[in-house]
């Protein structure tokens, strides 16, 4: 996203929530870091660097099951595509 658009969005969010732009940026950083952290956990789980129990503990069973379904679907698709 272009810098101008980011600034516009920050301004609009601040007005909408009636908070300072600095508070919007703080929330954005917190949300962004949380997303990146969860992505890292998914990556580590799929790479067998953490156990399923640890993944469930940090991500929740629904997310882990969704990741597993997506992983299985992708693996099955690739194997099929190469041999169909």
């Amino acid at each position, binding site marked *: 996203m272009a810098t101008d658009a980011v600034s516009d969005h920050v301004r609009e969010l601040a007005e909408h929530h009636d908070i300072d732009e600095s508070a919007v940026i703080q929330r954005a950083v917190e949300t962004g870091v949380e997303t990146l952290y969860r*992505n890292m956990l*998914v*990556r580590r789980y*799929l*790479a067998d660097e953490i156990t399923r129990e640890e993944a469930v503990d940090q991500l929740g069973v629904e997310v882990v099951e*969704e*990741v597993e*379904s*997506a*992983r299985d*679907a*992708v*693996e*099955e*698709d*690739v*194997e*099929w*595509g*190469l*041999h*169909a």
Partner: protein
Amino acid sequence: MRLAAVSDAGPLIHLAEIDSLELLSAFDKLLIPETVYEEIEKGGVPDGLSDLSYELVEADVEKVESKELDAGERAALAFTTERAVVLLTDDLAAREAAADAGVEVRGSIGVIALGYGRGLLHRDEAAWRMRALQRETSLFVTEAVVERGIKTLDEM
């Protein structure tokens, strides 16, 4: 072996978003339910679709009862049932419903792998397009899952 597929809107939209609709030509026959075509028409028919050879088909949407699936997904699944064709969908709920009905089901990643398997793409191009699906389209899939797919590509 001749390969026929019926697609719901997902793969048509996602592959169009990465300029990869031509990979659907890896199928010997591509079928699109009219309900699905009407769905994608609302968002604008992707440019590359007119270059593809496909057949519009009628499907009985009411044949599949599901609150989780939209009309297009139900139409594609209804048409696929009892026919020897592959269902293309990127929706996990539709995928699960298809598997329960004994239908062979694949997604956009599978179409890219098929393109690689049939010599339409080199390995790096296939990997690039898989990553593009995750980065540049409305398909919800995590980066780690896509990387797992690319790893599978290399292991086969």
